[in-house]
């Protein structure tokens, strides 16, 4: 049922001496909203640019809609929407003229939707882009990427300059666009709570590869934090499998584990004569654990 809208296979990319992507694999099945996370410089933007044919990988294969990303046909390009971190150029244009100009390149441009969104987000068509705030430019950039109903929508930090109201509006747009099961989205953001809301899957990249991927609720059930309070001094290591990270201080310990059943965790209580509690993690916690 689910074919892949985009596929990255063993992608490598380096800039001078710095290797950014080191054999990265990522498939984007139809109907998914991928929440892409990674530390600054982890290679999120590079990954996106390789996927969209804006950067040529040194090695590996990138395909979109089954075509080679570096040689996309016009038809394939028409089905991509991209909101980059910063919108290049066009500063001298007025908002309305800008959208009409961009629209002239697209067969499926929905001009009415573009102007309705502009109105809803408080941007007047006659405003010159050079006079706009960062947030307003970001809104315009989002409108530009949405209204030709693309099959692949990619947002690179789209909400950084949006006010909270516009951000929630934007999230609602994402949810509604995501109801079309033929469409896929990649949403790159540091705002974990936004990804918790709208992403169907989380992808965390680290050291040039995908370090963790999965449905958020599955990740939350797999990765747990254990708090141990014993009545004697604890000696590391704590006798439990699959430790991601552990801190032992005197008679207390905090241990993060992956894929350990609750019963096994609770059995630590007897082994260490300790009180054991299991804590579930939110996405920000999981991100921190992966990047320790």
């Amino acid at each position, binding site marked *: 049922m689910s074919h892949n809208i985009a596929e990255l296979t063993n992608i490598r990319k380096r800039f001078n001496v710095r290797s950014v992507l080191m054999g990265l694999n990522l498939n984007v099945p139809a109907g998914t909203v991928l929440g892409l996370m990674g530390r600054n410089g982890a290679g999120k933007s590079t990954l996106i640019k390789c996927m969209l044919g804006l950067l040529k990988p040194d090695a590996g294969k990138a395909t979109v809609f089954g075509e080679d990303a570096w040689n996309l046909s016009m038809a394939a390009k028409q089905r991509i929407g991209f909101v980059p971190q910063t919108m290049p150029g066009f500063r001298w244009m007025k908002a309305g003229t800008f959208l009409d100009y961009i629209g002239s390149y697209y067969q499926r441009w929905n001009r009415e939707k573009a102007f309705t969104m502009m109105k809803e987000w408080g941007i007047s068509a006659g405003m010159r882009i050079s006079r706009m705030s960062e947030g307003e430019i970001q809104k315009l950039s989002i409108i530009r990427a949405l209204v030709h109903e693309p099959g692949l929508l990619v947002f690179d930090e789209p909400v950084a300059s949006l006010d909270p109201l516009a951000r929630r509006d934007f*999230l609602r747009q994402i949810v509604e666009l995501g*109801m079309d099961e033929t469409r896929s989205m990649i949403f790159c953001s540091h705002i974990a709570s936004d990804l918790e*809301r709208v*992403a169907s899957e989380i992808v965390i990249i680290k050291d040039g590869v995908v370090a963790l991927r999965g449905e958020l609720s599955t990740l939350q059930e797999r990765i747990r934090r254990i708090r141990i309070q014993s009545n004697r001094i604890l000696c590391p290591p704590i006798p439990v499998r699959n430790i991601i990270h552990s801190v032992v201080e005197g008679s207390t310990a905090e241990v993060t584990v992956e894929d350990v059943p609750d019963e096994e965790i609770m059995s630590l209580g007897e082994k260490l004569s300790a009180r054991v509690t299991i804590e*579930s993690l939110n996405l920000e916690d999981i991100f921190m654990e992966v990047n320790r």
Partner: protein
Amino acid sequence: MADDLRTLLFEIKPSSGIPIYRQIIEQVRRLVASGALRAGEELPSIRQAASHYEINPMTISKAYSLLEKEGVVEHVRGGGMRVASLHSAARTPRKRMDLLRPALREVSTQANQLGLSRTEVLEALSAYLEENDEP
């Protein structure tokens, strides 16, 4: 009007650490057990709930399908979900107790952490129970 009420049912906290689908399941169970949601009442559709709470539709459909498996809700012709009529009959004391268990476990953990004795905790709990018994 009714629509507005139904979409305001849930309280979603994305970063609480509890998976969102589990938050929905627990809230529906509790609303049904307390009678706030009655048999035959419809839940917000997946689309409605997704755009109202700005959460991925798959999260809601996961919650609904698990609730359906439990027999708490059932499909309505036309695609919606409503509180199952069977569920009111199945509201045995045991099931109601199951709903209370997570809260009890939490109390016992905290009591433990605070180093309170069993007698102290039970005494405090029965005081609360008595308080609620009084009309």
